[in-house]
């Protein structure tokens, strides 16, 4: 029994962090944020180069066949550097969707393209992902129509995967004439939030899931888990900056970290934040290894880390005083990242409600 990251996972983490530290300066981040697609081609190529884009894709389809714990490790690093990439939809949720909903032939066609980074997929849900707004979509033959909001990672997507209420999934070329995508800037400038209008768009229908509801839940829970890890990374960054700042910043002839008001706030933040990492690791591990705990753990990880993340974001911003509120330090990018992660795929209250259902505490 071993609770912690393997040597391989630690290596993966350190090489990715080195790469992001080198590539993603605050100036670069500002530039990508200004573009607003949530995509940076050179960064994407870098991730392809590191083998990360295909790492959930099975080896025989050109990927590395790693587990969700590896995805969580990567997501934490991406969150730490507030990386603008369509990781969640394209690297995590799309391959899992194809692996559950696609036939062998469909998997053989699409998974290698995902693994090589050639296609980038956004993910849209008609139901069950805790999204707000009016969403409906339906198939007539193989033509998809409808309107979907709150779509992830659509900014530079070549394709969109739609999870339908009838237990099927539809794969649509984002440039099909029947598709209109509206990319809205979100609070998190590193990731837009989009809507799709479909009017008879040509869809490839994926209907091979043995239990479609279960498969859809698994995909969404994997997404929640990755969001929790992303939030953890962003919160850890904000914590680290605040800790450094409180040791450097001098007021009344003393480093502000020597004042108990500041010291105690930081101690409280560490006390909240540290256990989140063990929670995320365990929840990620459960997605692959402990099926009976997978749901409840994904829901609790998303809810709990979101709550802690919000506290960390606020208090670390406050600890920087007026500077925390300015654009100069760029701290707000992390603040907004945490805010985005909190809402997408179900805010904490929604996730806790789901967790109550899973445990039979809620009369249906």
């Amino acid at each position, binding site marked *: 029994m071993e609770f*912690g990251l393997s040597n391989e996972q630690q290596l993966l983490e350190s090489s990715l962090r080195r790469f992001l530290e080198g590539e993603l300066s605050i100036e670069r981040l500002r530039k990508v944020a200004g573009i607003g697609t949530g995509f940076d081609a050179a960064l994407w190529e870098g991730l392809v180069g590191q083998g990360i884009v295909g790492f959930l894709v099975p080896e025989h389809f050109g990927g590395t066949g790693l587990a969700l714990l590896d995805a969580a490790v990567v997501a934490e690093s991406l969150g730490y550097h507030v990386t603008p990439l369509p990781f969640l939809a394209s690297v995590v949720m799309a391959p899992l969707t194809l692996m559950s909903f696609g036939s062998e032939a469909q998997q053989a066609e699409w998974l290698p393209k995902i693994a090589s980074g050639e296609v980038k997929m956004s993910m849209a849900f008609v139901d069950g992902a805790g999204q707000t707004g009016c969403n409906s979509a339906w198939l007539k033959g193989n033509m998809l129509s409808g309107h979907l909001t709150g779509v992830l990672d659509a900014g530079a997507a070549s394709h969109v995967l739609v999870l339908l209420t009838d237990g099927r999934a539809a794969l649509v070329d984002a440039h099909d004439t029947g598709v209109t995508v509206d990319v809205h800037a979100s609070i998190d400038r590193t990731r837009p939030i989009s809507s799709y209008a479909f009017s008879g768009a040509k869809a490839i229908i994926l209907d091979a899931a043995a239990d479609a509801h279960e498969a859809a839940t698994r995909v969404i829970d994997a997404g929640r888990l990755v969001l929790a890890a992303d939030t953890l990374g962003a919160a850890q960054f904000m914590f680290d900056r605040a800790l450094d700042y409180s040791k450097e910043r001098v007021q009344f002839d003393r480093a502000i970290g020597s004042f108990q008001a500041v*010291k*105690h706030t930081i101690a409280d933040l*560490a*006390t909240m934040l*540290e256990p989140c990492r*063990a929670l995320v690791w365990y929840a990620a591990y459960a997605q692959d290894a402990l099926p009976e705990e997978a749901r409840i753990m994904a829901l609790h990880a998303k809810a*709990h880390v979101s*709550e802690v993340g919000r506290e960390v974001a606020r208090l670390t911003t406050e600890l920087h005083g007026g500077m925390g509120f300015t654009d100069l330090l760029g701290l707000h990018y992390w603040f907004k990242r945490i805010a985005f992660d909190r809402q997408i795929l179900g805010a904490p209250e929604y996730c806790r409600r789901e*967790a109550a259902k899973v445990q039979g505490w809620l009369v249906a």
Partner: protein
Amino acid sequence: MDLSYGPRYLALREEVRDFIKQYGDQSPRTGGGRKRPDKRALDWQRLLLQRGYFARTIPKEYGGFGLPLDVMELAIIADEFSTAGVSAGIMNQGISMLVPTLLEVGSREQCAKWIGPTIRGEVIWCQGYSEPGSGSDLAAVKTHAYVDDGRFVINGQKIWTSSAHFADMMFLLCRTDADKGKHGGLSYLLIPMSAEGIEVRPLITMTGRAEFNETFLTNVRVPIDQIVMQRGDGWHVANVTLKYERLLLGDPNKLAHRLARVIELMRRTSLIGVPTIEIPEYRDRLLKLQGEVLASKFHGLRLLSEQSRDEESGVRRLIVKLNGTMIAYRLSSLAVDVLGAAGLSYEPKGEALEDDEATTWQIDNMYDIGLIIGGGSSNIQRNIIGERGLGLPREPTANTKSAQKV
């Protein structure tokens, strides 16, 4: 990450389960500890020691089971006893704090003399640390001892000495050298409570019970070899003890157990005819706490794993007390809220095990405040986390220049 248990661990789990199935009904009820262990508790303790489910890693020569430390084995045993709701043995300050301290820094003779009777539950210890004038500033203790004719002669007053009214022994922090500075002049002594010159007076707490005592020491004489380590090492020894106390307070196993009790309570109680667990406001509070308990539980597993690899856990270990005691308090607060008006009744009996449900939760809720304060209050823990764990500068003390300026 590998959370699977190998065949050896699975076999141990089966073995413990079989043991509990066969002997579990001989277990005393859990949750005692305000009195000396009775015959039932002592018999149960003897059985656990024989089987190696208690003091598993303590050397045989000191009355333990003598197995090498394997944190997973300990976790499996704790888990099985806690799940079955069966007593995992006597818990007191002697067993959980003094014994590991002696093993770490005590002499061979001290280990041989005290560990066996302590883990068998025959010798009960109390902790002589705090004083009316030195609570959080533990190094400021004024109780002092001088040597006369091969004996320490101790004078002073201690406070918050739980179990002092029935304890056999006290581990005591006192000043033996007035001129060696605040921390350097302290010593750690083991003294019999039957010694002449010790007076114990009960201290009534907010629960209405006398959980603590004030202890007065007047010319108490103990042999000079009753010191742990050397004269002047008291501060170091006291901190070894405190390390074990911090881990004890905030134990994630206890949180999981209490969470289970709150869930059970919320299924059983109702408000306007609806089970409380189905009322969204209460349910959401419960779920928030469940998330926190889970995070603490896996954090504990991570610490355990780090310990088994001999890794330093640093700040991760230091947060356990602050985090655990706050969650425990919020859990008992929810229970009290859920009980509503029915939960207001408060009729403590002599022994905790005789109390009704409302009284039990009310006492737990108040006692949790005591645990938040005891063993280094939350604000002291925040200083420890900030300074020792995260390297933040210390608060200037009164004799530094900048403080004088203020």
